[in-house]
């Protein structure tokens, strides 16, 4: 039995943040029903990356919304709204990520919906919280990264602000929403009472920086200083970074400098011995290392360093990663089967329960695909 079997989730979420939480809920065993506008459906169906579509919908939509059902409803239509309310009366969880005020306009704000179902866990994502000067700003990943200070942590000193090239704010925020939902469901099992869970992209991407912000808040407010070359963390000492070798790249994490100098036979490095040197002379040390490591291949360095338990790894790209036994043994990819018989290769849930990987071949739904079933099964219509 998957851990969340028997739970009913109604997802009003769009794009990535809330729907990524819905995907994990589904993979953990919940029944997730997306509420979508009739016809066009959720906007993510039309947002493609690299122009990739599968049938009428973007591959992106398929990736985020597999293993869910779809119920088409026009929330401005009183008949449809009534059905959605009846569905909510039976649901365990509601999620949405509309801008503040939107659900309230439909009469589906927390205060209204809790009257319909006091056991409901009502979970919502905003961009920047419901108060303050940014409350109406678009809740979008790159913008949340940009205002949060995050872009000054990656890339080398002197490089422009460097965003993380993936939607980290959306994904972290969806993850935090899920933490709140699950904790509230556990409380409900004791008290019978629902809950209101709120997270925002900005708070999530600030939480992501909690270690370094804690340092900043207690070091007199010094700005973060990225390394001049091979930066991997503005607050860690040399050798922490990424280095070019004769044929690729090598990542070196934290470790003793004098031991490293001896293992790689780098005389120039031997004068930096104390642990303080790694901070005080970081750029100088990393330059010396960069020159030295460029002389031999990644495999040669790994052969020296790995047996000595120096924390290092080669830097892989996707083609080399997916061909590697270390990737294959995880069985991290799975096939989703589309109605026409074709398949999409995507990833599974990263969590194992009782030794089992959680997989599901069920594809993303067409908009409104499950109206009939849901009307019959859940709404007795």
């Amino acid at each position: 039995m998957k851990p969340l079997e028997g739970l009913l989730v109604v997802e009003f979420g769009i794009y990535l943040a809330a729907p990524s939480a819905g995907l994990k809920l589904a993979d953990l065993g919940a029944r997730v029903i997306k509420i979508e506008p009739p016809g066009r459906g959720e906007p993510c169906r039309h947002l493609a990356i690299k122009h990739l579509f599968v049938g009428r919908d973007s591959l992106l939509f398929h990736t985020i919304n597999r293993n869910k059902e779809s119920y088409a409803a026009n929330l401005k239509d009183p008949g449809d709204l009534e059905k959605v309310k009846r569905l909510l009366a039976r649901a365990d969880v509601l999620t949405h990520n509309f801008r503040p005020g939107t659900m309230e306009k439909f009469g589906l704000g927390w205060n209204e919906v809790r009257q319909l179902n006091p056991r409901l866990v009502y979970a919502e994502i905003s961009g920047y919280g419901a108060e303050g000067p940014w409350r109406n700003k678009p809740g979008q990943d790159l913008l949340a990264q940009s205002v949060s200070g995050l872009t000054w942590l990656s890339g080398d000193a002197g490089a422009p602000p460097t965003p993380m090239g993936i939607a980290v704010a959306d994904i972290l925020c969806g993850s935090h929403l899920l933490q709140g939902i699950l904790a509230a469901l556990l409380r409900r099992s004791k008290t019978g009472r629902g809950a209101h869970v709120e997270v925002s992209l900005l708070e999530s991407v600030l939480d992501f920086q909690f270690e370094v912000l804690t340092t900043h808040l207690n070091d007199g407010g010094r700005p973060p200083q990225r390394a001049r070359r091979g930066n991997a963390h503005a607050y860690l000492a040399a050798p922490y970074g990424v280095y070019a070798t004769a044929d690729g790249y090598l990542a070196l994490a934290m470790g003793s400098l004098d031991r490293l100098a001896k293992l790689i036979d780098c005389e120039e490095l031997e004068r930096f011995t104390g642990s303080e040197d790694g901070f005080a002379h970081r750029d100088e040390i990393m330059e010396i290392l960069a020159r030295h490591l460029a002389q031999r291949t990644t495999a040669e360095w790994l052969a020296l360093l790995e047996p000595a338990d120096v924390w290092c790894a080669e830097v892989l790209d996707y083609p080399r990663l997916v061909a590697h036994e270390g990737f294959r043994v995880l069985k991290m990819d799975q096939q989703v089967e589309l109605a026409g018989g074709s398949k999409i290769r995507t990833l599974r849930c990263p969590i194992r329960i009782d030794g089992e990987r959680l997989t599901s071949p069920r594809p993303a739904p067409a908009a409104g695909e499950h109206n009939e079933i849901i009307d019959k099964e859940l709404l007795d219509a």
Partner: protein
Amino acid sequence: MRPLEGILVLDFGQFLSAPSASLRLADLGARVIKIERPVTGDICRQLYVSNVVLDGESTVFHAINRNKESFAADLKNPRDAERLRRLIRHADVVMHNFRPGVIERLGFDYESVRRLNPAVVYGEISGYGAEGPWRAKPGQDLLAQALSGLMWLSGNDGDPPVPMGLAIADILSGIHLTHGILACLVRRAITGEGARVQVSMLESVLDLQFEVLTTFFQDGGEPVRRSAVANAHAYLGAPYGIYQTADGWLALAMGQVPVLGRLLGCAALEPYTEPREWFDRRDEIKRVLADHLKTRTTAEWLAVLEPADIWCADVLDWRRLLAHDAFHVLGMIQTVRRSSGFAYRTLRCPIRVDGERLYSERGSPAVGEHTAAIIEEFKLEGEP
């Protein structure tokens, strides 16, 4: 009532991944006891990020381990091991992040713990899973990033691989561990059964890339190409990126290129009417944009773009962010205090429950600070 009140968590973890999970559980209301080796404790206490020392220990330790108790135990010492076995009988959750094989040798693996407490939810984080060629590799953030392909997504085309400058693999694996643990606690409330939850840093950082890896599988495995100009996402077209202005930087997310051209007074952008071109010719479009945006200040551009609901933002550093009203209104900073009296500032939990922000005044514990009290409370010594 905080949602996890009444839940007892024993965290054998060190560094960031498992301890970040138990921090979240603590803030949500659980009681978290850190199991630490006597005297030196969690290695993270001496893991310095920058040379800042707070009350004798590293800033990151204080950030990760506030709101917890510390129980000192040498797992190889029979007396301490017996105390822990007794304590485990009371626990709802036991978690660790040792390398595969270590906890088995110490006698606190899932099978052993389950014999003591069949309803326990047992959570573990490894670097790369328990099988395969990487199983014995150190489970460290930068290494997991390096192997996962992630480093080719940030920075511009032609740059070396650019790691994310934060411990993303640690943080995500800790988050996924909490997801599994909490889901199994929900199931346990119905069935009474315990569970084993396993995650790995590599699988977690692959999950982060689920959208782009699915795209990579679907497009026939074409190499990832970052944009040569202002890259912010290798798979998104122009204008997505961060651009220099006359006095700072401007982030531009989605937007139709000719519309942007008209709003910004940049005629050279108007001929790009085909959405397909915004991806296929993104470097050339972004170069035009980059040159044009340098001519005026960030505030001037925002004044044009925001009223037109173009998705854009100023790019702040911490100094400007921390001074901004939009930051103050969140109440994200809290001051916590150790029992030594030493106080420090840190962030709160990012989740609000029933309209309440979750604060906690309790700072990080000293090694073994709560050992005696816990022995007394749970009667860990003497005749059972």
